[in-house]
């Protein structure tokens, strides 16, 4: 196999993934597809190994588990051309949580499976105890929605409407879910069709060999980067506010990284036992955090694929927060991912200080279920709000952005107010929140909501008890906050993720967490500090914290 054909096929798969992605986001129905783009499209080899990573990276390691399980369940003989499988099962399919629904289509050439096409997308509602399905305080996965183990929804080229009806019947948003499912299946089939065409043209052996070479290339690249690190062992740990059920009890995430003989081992065994609340992680998510951190730290230009698994060993002890046992709930995985990335990056920085970064904020999810929606509009408002990066070696943290593994678009205020009976009264930066340091952390923002109708409001968020930490003498960033019943005698701050029934006229204020600072604050360049004051990022009083005490 020559290097040029391999590169041509890699480019072709990359452009195919791009094509699938674009089709889906233009054709999806729900705002979560269309505005937030919470989905991924991929091409996998015959064993379910991912070839080119999608923009929504943290889905990438899921597919290997999902296809592995499909192969286990059906065997190569039970999978036929024209099949499409569906699953949203965190334990059977490795999906991040029940709201994420996957479709997978096998690709055949010369009578054999040569590849798979796959997609994962968040669904507006799959049932469960709360509207939107992603509960902040579920205690079993059965609370989080209807569970679909890997089953066929297309059987040898024939659509099975019964399966679709069963799924849709379990949703509070049947129209949106059916529309998104239809678009998603179409995209999955497009992917399969295009790979079939590549096999016809280049020969299925050439395609298969190229996939193997692409996987090996990524493995070799990562191996040589790891081999260049100093050998050693470093640990780090961090605390999650709580599990959403027992709000007083924090949860520890811990990693020990060992680099030896060119192999990196990530051992998470010292993390806390699995939680009652929905903050448990599937191993696929732990893998996403490890590979994201490794690539970000060692070579942001590396292209992830499943070949990289050969360069790394990941240890997750059973019945811990990073490898829970069913039916432990998982719907709040994203903020746990973001905390885990902070912890991994802190330990990795000891091996590679040039890419050290302080703790970052975490995105939070807000869902508002309206009792009386605007005529003709959905009653479900769902937003993912970003936070800020920590400062790092030689770099201030970015404010007001989606950090690390999350990268969703914000829904514009003008769209929200036009579609839902809501008003955003304020959307402002909060001065002095960025962790002080030689390199400052990114700032918090604040948003005040006013409800114009009665609604159920759920916010899932982290980093309110344990703010993003500073590094190398840098200060912590400000913690996340949620003020409810604002302007009334009952005004209060929640202890974390929560759900409220609110009346028309109620106001609440969200504040995102800020990034931690890196390096001693008194080492900050005076010109940079003066600029921060001029821009209102730091107040005159706040600037005093940058003086040597």
């Amino acid at each position, binding site marked *: 196999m*020559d*290097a*040029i054909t391999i*590169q*041509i096929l890699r*480019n072709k798969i990359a*452009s195919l993934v*791009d*094509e699938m992605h*674009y*089709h889906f*986001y*233009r*054709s999806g*129905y729900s*705002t979560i597809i*269309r505005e937030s783009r919470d989905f991924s499209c991929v091409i996998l080899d015959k064993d379910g190994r991912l070839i080119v990573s999608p*923009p929504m*990276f943290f889905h990438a390691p899921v597919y290997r588990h999902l296809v592995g399980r499909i192969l286990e369940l059906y065997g190569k003989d039970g999978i036929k051309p024209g099949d499409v499988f569906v699953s949203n099962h965190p334990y059977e399919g490795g999906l991040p949580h029940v709201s994420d629904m996957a479709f997978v289509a096998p690709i055949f050439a010369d009578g054999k499976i040569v590849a798979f096409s796959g997609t994962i997308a968040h669904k507006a509602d799959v049932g469960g105890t709360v509207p939107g399905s992603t509960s902040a305080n579920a205690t079993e996965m059965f609370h989080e929605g209807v569970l679909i183990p890997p089953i066929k929804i297309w059987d040898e080229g024939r659509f099975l409407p019964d399966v679709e009806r069963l799924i849709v019947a379990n949703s509070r948003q049947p129209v949106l879910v059916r*529309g998104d499912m239809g678009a998603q299946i*179409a995209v999955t089939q497009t992917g399969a069709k295009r790979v079939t065409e590549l096999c016809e043209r280049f020969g299925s052996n050439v395609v298969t060999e190229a996939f193997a070479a*692409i996987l090996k*290339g*990524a493995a*070799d690249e990562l191996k040589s980067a790891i081999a260049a690190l100093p050998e050693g062992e470093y640990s780090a740990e961090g605390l999650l506010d709580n599990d959403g059920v027992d709000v007083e009890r924090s949860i520890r995430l811990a990693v020990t990284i060992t680099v030896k003989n060119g192999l990196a081992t990530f051992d998470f065994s010292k993390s806390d036992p699995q939680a009652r609340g929905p903050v448990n992680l599937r191993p696929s998510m732990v893998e996403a955090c490890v590979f994201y951190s490794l690539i*970000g730290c060692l070579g*942001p*230009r590396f*292209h992830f694929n499943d070949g990289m698994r050969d360069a790394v060993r990941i240890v997750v002890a059973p019945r811990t927060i990073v490898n829970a046992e069913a039916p432990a709930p998982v719907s709040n995985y994203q903020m746990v991912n973001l905390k885990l990335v902070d912890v991994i990056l802190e330990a990795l920085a000891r091996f590679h200080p040039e890419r050290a*970064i302080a703790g*970052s904020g975490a995105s939070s999810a807000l869902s508002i279920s309206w009792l009386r929606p605007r005529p*003709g*509009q*959905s009653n479900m408002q769902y937003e993912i*709000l970003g936070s800020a*990066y920590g400062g*790092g070696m*030689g*770099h201030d943290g*970015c*404010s*007001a*952005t*989606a950090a690390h593994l999350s*990268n969703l*678009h*914000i829904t*514009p*205020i*003008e769209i929200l*107010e*036009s*579609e839902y009976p809501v*008003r955003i*009264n304020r*959307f*402002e930066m909060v001065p002095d929140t960025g962790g002080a340091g030689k390199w400052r952390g990114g700032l918090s923002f*604040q948003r005040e909501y006013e409800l114009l109708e009665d609604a159920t409001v759920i916010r899932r968020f982290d980093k309110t008890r344990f703010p993003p930490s500073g590094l190398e003498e840098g200060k912590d960033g400000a913690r996340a906050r949620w003020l409810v019943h604002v302007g009334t005698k009952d005004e209060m701050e929640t202890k974390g993720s929560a759900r409220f029934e609110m009346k028309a006229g109620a106001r609440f204020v969200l504040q995102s967490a800020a990034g931690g600072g890196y390096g001693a604050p008194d080492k900050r360049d005076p010109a940079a500090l003066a600029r921060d004051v001029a*821009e*209102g990022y730091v107040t005159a009083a706040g600037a005093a914290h940058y003086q040597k005490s």
Partner: protein
Amino acid sequence: MKDAKSRYRLGVDVGGTHTDLVLLDTMSGELLVEKVSSTPSNPALGVLNGVAKFVARGIPADAIEFFAHGTTITTNALLEMRGAKVGVLITKGYRAVQEIQAQARDGNLFDYFYSKPTPIVPQSLTREIPERSDYLGNVLLPLDRDAVRNAARQLHEAGAESIAVCYLFSFMNPEHEEETRRIIQAEIPGAQVSISSEVLPRIREWARLSTTLLNAYLEPVLVRYIDHLNKGLDEVGVGTQQRFLMQSNGGVMPFSAAIAGGRTVHTLLSGPAAGAQASAYLNEKEATSGLVTLDMGGTSADIAFIEGGMPLEVTEGVIARRQIDVPALDMTTISAGGGSLAWIDGAGFLTVGPQSAGAAPGPACYGRGGTRPAVTDADVVCGYLNPNYFLGGSQTLDVEASRNAIKTEIADKLGISVLEAAAGVRRIVDMRMADEVRVFAAKRGVDLSTFTLLPFGGAGAVHAAAVAEELGMKRLLVPPRPGAFSALGLLCTDVVHDYIRSELRPLADVSPEHADEIFRVLEKKASEELVAEGMKVEDAMFSRELDLRYTGQGYELRTPLDGLFNGRLDAKAMVAARDRFDERHAQIHGHAAKERSVEVVSYRLRLRVAVPKYVPTLGVAPAKPRAVAEAIKGTRTIYFDGRTPVESNVYERDGLDIGIVLNGPAVIEQFDATTIVPPTWSARVDHYHNLILERGNA
């Protein structure tokens, strides 16, 4: 018949390195071409130098009746951050909008040392004004006029040269922004003010703010330039009544409209528009079955589709990482140019681009110190380019330098021969262009099988046949002067102005009368502006469009209303519009949902005023055409597959008469371009002097 006083029309296209000028003699139909160096520090100078060259050739300047200009002055000012110092007024309480922007990161998602682009306006030049409207345009909080006055004064004192205003929901009710502009202009006479309800009255606050900021940032640059150029042209004695500027929507606007303000952003993506426009206009007959244009220059390739004689358009764009939501020709650009560098990446794969050798040092073969191989080096090594006839022989290429660069950087590392490596570089870059075309076609619901590929730019015709083969396309059209094609495009455009009004509402709730009223208000505004620009309303053609989407979707589709109504919109037209939307949705996204409710997001009006255009003259085949054999000026060895030497005939393009037919393998050389005819292709010259390449020997 034209009189001698108004005999000439001039198109001037300013590029990064060269300024191309095309002068049309309307009496003879003849085209004169000039190429001069661009003068980035004072771009008007290059334009005037070019005009002077025509004058020196005996063209009287006062006989130039028409002047159309394509310039990247605003684009370059943005790329180099040389715009004006801008202050902005926003609704009080919303400073985070300009910080969070889209929230999602662009670029490499693994790089946690991420930064947003430097803000056009920092927070220190942002002023919050108490005022607020709701989503229907009802005023919730009246405008605080004193706050506007204070803000204007403060920003003026802080040195702001240009002021932007963007309030929430101003697209529903522009009164606060308009009043704000009046107050600012009373406070600071002569102030340049860009208001969002005029620049982009469209829903989504960040896109609108970003577009308005770009307008405010670049408007003083453009106005200054036009002023300068106008004076220069007057001094030379160019006698045109109206002078025109190229826009990203494929049309032109008069200089007077650019100076009047609010339209500067429409020039930002205009660079590649003229070429696509020329393709559409000059080859309308071809375009009915569809054209793909491939403009391959030094650093990138621009690709556009033309269907039914019209280029496709988009309404959202990004330039230099900044959001700009104005109508633009739908182009995609990839880093595949003659200067794109080839290298072995960390995983051991051969990769081309995105880095470019640029003009300096340039590809290794330029002999300007470049040691890294570029696409042009691969072209030279494989024999596609004549090292002694680059730019008509004004530059010679160093083949040895190309070979060495490819050997050291690629062949030795992969353990293959220099020729195989060079052919590999070409294969990768050609396939990338083809893949880009294919994805782009899929995105837009375009069926390529009946399309013709139209290459231009310096390198387009060198690579086009390979790209066409990869795409299964059977036909190429190479215009007579591929290098000056964009400048020619300037003589092929109409005045086009776009107007928009957002109002998010279920289509079922929009009465035909209401929609008609919105369009009439837009038409009135358009007519008034047209008159102010010195044109006649009688000459204008209006076309209406609705931006529609299924309820709950986040992106809308432009749905033209042409042919659906006569005079006034009625209920039947609204139903037909809905059907047309379903059809377009199915065409572009592969499915429609006829049972789902539809929302109107925006109303669009396009005004078009026809401008006298270049009409290509039909050539006549000579009575006794020269034989093909006579046109051969030599032979050259080309390695199409990197292994097999193939003796190919070399032709001079000017020596090929209308009607001539030749078979590949062949090379057709001309001053500004080289066309490759692969072994299984044939070429002929049509009556417009286009080269038509077709698969299969004649």
